[in-house]
């Protein structure tokens, strides 16, 4: 049997050297418009405390911190395939690290926030190798169990209020970096000024985390992570260090989650193990946001958090009925819009504000 050989080798090498034949694009005209609109929105949000009422600022602290947690869970579970039900562990650790930093070490609250993140990251680095021995649903359960164990450990620290928790007195927070400036700038009393400061920190965190995740997803490491999620054996066979990339992601997400926990509890100024390690508040709601908004998109958590905020605002007066509505909605969306509200809309109208797919085309 004879087969004609074709003189591909030489010509292939040359073409690659001469001029790029193929090119990749990710962004679209719409995404560039969205980027400009996004910057404008952030500027408006940053200026908001100058004229918005205090209760709106408080609401937005909730929205922004939940958005950040949702983005973090989305990158971990949606892109990374690490479906953790134990993210409350890092919220709680961050919150407790903040309180410990303020009460025991006398740190400035703002300076204690990154340290709280660091503390959560260190614990995550230790837990990671244990949890990654488990896969799929076992990993989910394992992460939850780990979070419960950490809650019980935190409850043992008498100096941090033990099982009943503790408060930070306003006087301890009155010397906070930036507080006097905010008071003078907006003519507010200390309590309101603290909300504004926390709001700006929450906004900063939300913007940095969202942009950081988007940049990561579009990078080669984001690609490697997605490959590891889809098929670990195949990913390893094409040279991806799947274990390392998952571990790094897990630690990075814990770092940011810890900082969110610190910001949330800086505003609350009161902590208890049950609240700070609450699976409902810091994981169930977060998963709800991602699922109804749209998993594996940057826009999904944004849509989801606004839906949740709307539901919380208008249904809170109906008591437990509110939870029934949330649950029913989640089930309906999972059944009829498995990609979430944003996912369904994006598919229907072919819109993406934060596109991630790399499109290959010929340069000519």
């Amino acid at each position: 049997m004879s087969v004609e050989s074709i003189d591909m080798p030489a010509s292939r090498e040359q073409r690659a050297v001469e001029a790029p034949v193929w090119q990749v694009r990710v962004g679209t005209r719409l995404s560039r418009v969205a980027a400009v609109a996004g910057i404008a929105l952030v500027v408006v949000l940053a200026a908001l405390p100058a004229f918005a009422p205090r209760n709106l600022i408080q609401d937005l602290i909730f929205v922004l911190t939940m958005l950040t947690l949702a983005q973090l869970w989305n990158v971990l579970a949606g892109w990374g395939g690490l479906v953790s039900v134990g993210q409350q562990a890092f919220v709680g650790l961050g919150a407790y690290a903040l309180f410990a930093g303020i009460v025991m070490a006398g740190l400035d609250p703002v300076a204690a926030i990154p340290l709280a993140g660091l503390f959560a990251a260190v614990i995550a680095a230790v837990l990671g190798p244990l949890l990654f021995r488990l896969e799929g649903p076992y990993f989910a359960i394992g992460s939850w169990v780990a979070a419960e164990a950490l809650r019980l450990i935190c409850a043992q620290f008498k100096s941090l209020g033990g099982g009943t928790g503790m408060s930070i007195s306003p006087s301890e927070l009155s010397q906070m970096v930036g507080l006097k400036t905010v008071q003078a700038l907006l003519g507010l009393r200390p309590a309101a000024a603290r909300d504004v400061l926390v709001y700006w920190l929450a906004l900063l965190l939300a913007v940095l985390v969202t942009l950081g995740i988007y940049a990561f997803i579009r990078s080669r490491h984001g690609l490697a992570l997605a490959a590891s999620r889809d098929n670990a054996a195949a990913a390893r066979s094409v040279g991806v260090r799947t274990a390392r990339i998952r571990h790094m992601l897990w630690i990075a997400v814990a770092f940011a989650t810890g900082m969110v926990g610190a910001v949330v509890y800086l505003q609350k100024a009161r902590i208890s193990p049950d609240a700070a390690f609450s699976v409902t508040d810091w994981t169930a709601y977060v998963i709800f946001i991602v699922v109804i908004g749209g998993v594996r998109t940057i826009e999904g958590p944004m849509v989801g958090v606004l839906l949740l905020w709307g539901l919380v605002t208008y249904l809170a007066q109906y008591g437990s009925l509110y939870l029934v509505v949330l649950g029913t909605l989640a089930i309906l969306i999972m059944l009829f819009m498995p990609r979430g509200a944003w996912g369904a809309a994006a598919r229907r109208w072919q819109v993406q504000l934060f596109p991630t797919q790399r499109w290959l085309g010929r340069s000519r």
Partner: protein
Amino acid sequence: MLELHSVSKTFGAIVVADAIDLTLVSGEALGVIGPNGAGKSTLFNLITGLLRPDAGRIVLDGVDITGLSPEARCRAGIGRSFQIPQPFDHLSVFENLAVAAQFGGGLSETDAVQHCGLMLDLTGLEAKANRLAGSLPLLDRKRLELARALATRPRTLLLDEIAGGLTDAECHQLVETIRTIHAEGVGIIWIEHVVHALLAVVQRLVVLNFGKIVAQGVPSEVMRSREVETIYMGVPA
């Protein structure tokens, strides 16, 4: 050069690799045949590191790689396709290659684009470059297996049954592609049931049965050997 020195692997009582000695000289094309369950795919999993041998050594260019992870072996120049296609479903065809080119192939993001473009062109997948891999029909998935393995820029390429189910024209095309790759100096080990395609490429043939090499040598002679007749035709030994 890739060398296997008495590599063995058992799953419980089942011996899937029984003291296999095998050498692939640089740039050689080697065919592997054998009945189902003979241990052909297991052989690939041992070479690529998805399975660790119970005994024996695997040496690549004089370096013992027996303890290396699959990802390290890929970076060292061993590329493979899977018998049952294992695409990254939620990534596009191009992205499937891009991850392979950047991590296994060690290319920069810019160089990877050109390399992947060439490999997609070579394997006839360019028109489908932006489709999600999970939406591809079976034959395209097989093409993707080959394209993605090539994207890692292997010096040794392990192909696991990539010709099954192709039409004659497609099969001819595939043989040409593999000959092209081989002509560039890439060493090839090819497991294939479509024997005429295999024989159009390989210089040496190995027959596996029950985890053992039962015959090897020049393809035409091996195909006429008593061992092959026994296994495939049921002629008593």
